[in-house]
């Protein structure tokens, strides 16, 4: 694990000298500032932090962080980040990616990094559109959505990122609106603390090519009624008046109102993010109303590095090979005089 430190950083220590070049009003600014505020709270040394990105608007992120960073190629950030982490498990490694980068061109790497459970963090900026190439549909765009590459409406059904991630074995999955810096900052800290691959989906508004795509979920006026912010160990309750909640009816989640039809708060489901079984977590990520935000799943498991370390220690303890010469001159050799 990363060494913790006494020294207290502020967000300025994580701000690079590069001018930020996202469009004015983009949620990416919120993500950047939330991260710069979260890092001083993590107790990690600046030189131990590495941001890796692929290609897309999201992937400019590393340039703006005064840490180690690599802006790499489209879709491959999980592979590159895995190499960084396996080479030096003491680093805090972050993959900054988008919906196209992670689930279209990088889909293969995305599912495999989640399957392996390497202790790194992924922040996925989901804006349901390709921004940097100026407005084509992405793997999360909706059917019927009109974009530059679907002028008559998109015909390809979308991925639900959480469903895909949990299906691939994600141990940590959280979702958050792009306009709530305080909650987002806390989620980054929680993701950092989690041992294993953590994935945070940010519902990120693209002001230019898909403006308002999450309006009905994230706008201040509606968010409390349209989102359920999940917390481990707490009842699944939501609504401006805190009077709505979720129960399980048969194999489906159902929205109920406290006080109606004999429903009391005790009847609501209690969120267990740490449960190994995926069933309820899958239902929650699929839910269209209310949209589940917060930490949906946080199941701690053995990481790839831990398995590798254990094996390496075992092999080292049982091996006679300390230096390459021991190997090269071992076994069937013969001497010519």
């Amino acid at each position, binding site marked *: 694990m990363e060494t913790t430190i006494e020294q207290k950083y502020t967000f300025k220590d994580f701000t690079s000298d590069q001018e930020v070049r996202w469009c004015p009003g983009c949620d990416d600014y919120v993500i950047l500032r939330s991260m710069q505020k979260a890092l001083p709270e993590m107790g990690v040394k600046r030189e131990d932090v590495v941001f890796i990105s692929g290609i897309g608007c999201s992937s400019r992120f590393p340039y703006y962080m005064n840490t180690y960073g690599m802006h*790499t190629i489209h879709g491959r950030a999980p592979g*590159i980040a895995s*190499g960084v982490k396996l*080479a030096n498990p003491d680093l805090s490694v972050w993959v900054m990616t988008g919906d196209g980068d992670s689930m279209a061109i990088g889909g293969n790497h995305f599912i495999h990094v989640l399957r392996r459970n390497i202790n790194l963090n992924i922040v996925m900026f989901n804006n349901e559109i390709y921004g940097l190439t100026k407005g084509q549909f992405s793997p999360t765009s909706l059917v019927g959505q009109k974009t530059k590459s679907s002028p008559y409406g998109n015909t390809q059904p979308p991925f639900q990122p959480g469903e895909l991630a949990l299906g691939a074995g994600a141990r940590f999955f959280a979702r958050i609106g792009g306009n709530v810096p305080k909650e987002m900052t806390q989620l980054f800290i929680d993701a950092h603390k989690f041992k294993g691959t953590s994935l945070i989906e940010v519902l990120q508004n693209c002001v230019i090519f898909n403006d308002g795509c999450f309006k009905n979920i994230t706008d201040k006026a509606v968010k409390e009624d349209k989102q359920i912010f999940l917390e481990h160990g707490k009842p699944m309750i939501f609504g401006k008046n805190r009077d709505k909640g979720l129960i399980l009816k048969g194999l489906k989640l159902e929205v109920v109102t406290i006080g109606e039809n004999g429903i009391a708060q005790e009847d609501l489901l209690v969120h267990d993010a740490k449960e190994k079984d995926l069933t309820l977590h899958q239902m929650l990520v699929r839910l269209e109303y209310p949209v589940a935000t917060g930490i949906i799943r946080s199941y701690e498991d053995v990481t790839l590095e831990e398995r590798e370390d254990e094996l390496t220690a075992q092999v*080292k303890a049982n091996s006679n090979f300390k230096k390459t010469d021991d*190997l090269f001159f071992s076994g069937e*050799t013969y001497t*010519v005089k």
Partner: protein
Amino acid sequence: MISDKVKLQPEVIEAVVIRFVGDSGDGMQLTGTQFSDTSAMFGNDIATFPNYPSEIRAPQGSLYGVSGFQVHIGSVEVSTPGDNLDLLVAMNPAGLKTNLYAVKPGHTIIVDTDAFSKKNLEKAQYETNPLEDGSLENYRIIQVDMTSLTKEALKEVEGLDNKSIVRSKNMFALGMVYWMYGRSKEHTIEFFNKKFKTKPNLIEANTKVLNAGYFFAETLELIPNAYTISPAKMKPGTYRIIMGNTATAWGFLAAAEKSGLELFLGSYPITPATDILHELVKHKHFGVKAFQAEDEIAGIASAIGASFAGDLAITTTSGPGLALKGEALGLAMIMELPLVVVNVQRGGPSTGLPTKTEQSDLLQAMYGRNGESPVIVIAASTPADCFQYAYEAAKLSLEHMTPVILLTDGYIANGSAPWKIKSLKDLPEIKNRISKNASEDFHPYERDEETLARNWAIPGTAGLEHRIGGLEKDRITGNVSQAPENHEKMTKIRAEKIKRVQNFIPDIKTEFAETGDLLVIGWGGTYGSLHSAVKQINEDGYKNIGFAHFNYINPLPKNTEELLTRFKKIIVCELNNGQFAKILRINFEGFKIHQFNKIQGLPFGNNELIAEFKKLVD
């Protein structure tokens, strides 16, 4: 009778080429390996080459399911697995049919007659039995009921099923060949003891069958004489038999230890490169991190990540995999990170001939990336020198801060030969360029004046935090820059950095003649074939034929052009359609460069090369 006794005196010969063939499940690779290892320990020079089908277990007895292992042993220098056979051991009709062409007329073929059933003859598409129809009268055929004799030898061993009994008949054949060439059985019996440690009945069975074959050959009147091949004159030292892919893997192990770095391999299985992965995963005791990724791209991507984090990072592949890695390799190149990409070439294009050899990825290695993206390209030339060139690839990569492509091929990767073991203390120093000290004015793209290599600042080092990436960068600070002059300048700096590697690599040397009528040029895995052909033509009375073999392709050695001026004629021989010849023409104008190309998935034969050389000098 007297004449028979005279014949029984072992005949002394210099070298012999033997091929063992059978079904892909018959254990021919094992038989061949045992024979070559035993011969090497006896002191012979050896070269081997396995030849197996791309099907794992092709239908029994079929022509395309034949698996073979060829070994060339000599009391003289042996540089190839040999062309034509002195002895063919054929375990079934399909093996005989597909390999008969290679047997020298008048030479020996051993067959298992039990396998020449009607069914097997049909599968091998024989209309009549070749053992009975007189079609083999130009050869010395030794017919042995190997399967029956094996069963007979094992009738008292308990706990064996019929399948295990029949499968051990390869050891009967090996026993016979051991006797014929005066080899000791000891090494193989030791091998049984180790391999079947927990299964004593298998040790007993295999030893019995090996002995049965050996004594059968000794007593059999059908074998009129035996051969002696004396130990070869080799440089003093400690040797072992090594396969090319193992030597490659070990070269990286040595480079990691010498440079003080940990070794990281990111790889995805692909024939014929996978054995490098198989070898490196074993060496966790040296702290090797071998990561089998989800695909070729993640293989190189993880290696790039590990390189950024300060490991000696490599990725291994074959042609199609190199194509997939192209974009990421360009990234490593513009980020100027050390990285070695091993391409064990096979027949292409596309899936091509996965188990056969070719040298057709040279231009891909040179130019197969978008943009102006030169990297160092070097090539190993023998199974044993895969060690040296893997080590050299790592050294150049770390000292010049650039990706290096190391080309080997299926022929040398799967072939084996004696390797004079290199101790770490005898290997050249490797200086990595890791920056340790934080300084106010650290710039990631500041360069060493001599090599133009940048410094390597790795995560975890306080004060050196920086960002790099695939976008063009300012030539000092490394910040993103789209400035027109900066891009042109950076493009030229990256090219010059590779060119300056010329100052750190040896000049190209010639063998057999310094100057003269014909210069034979080769590169990479064809060294053995070309060397032996040029040697022979010079021995045949052609005195002025020189040979130059290239291991450094990008950049080429400094004296390459001067070399070309020293001979009247030049011929470039390669297992592709003329790729290295093209590179020479691009670089050096005004030379008439002849080509000899073979694109059959097979190495060059001695005779075809000599015939080609003679056309140019006669």
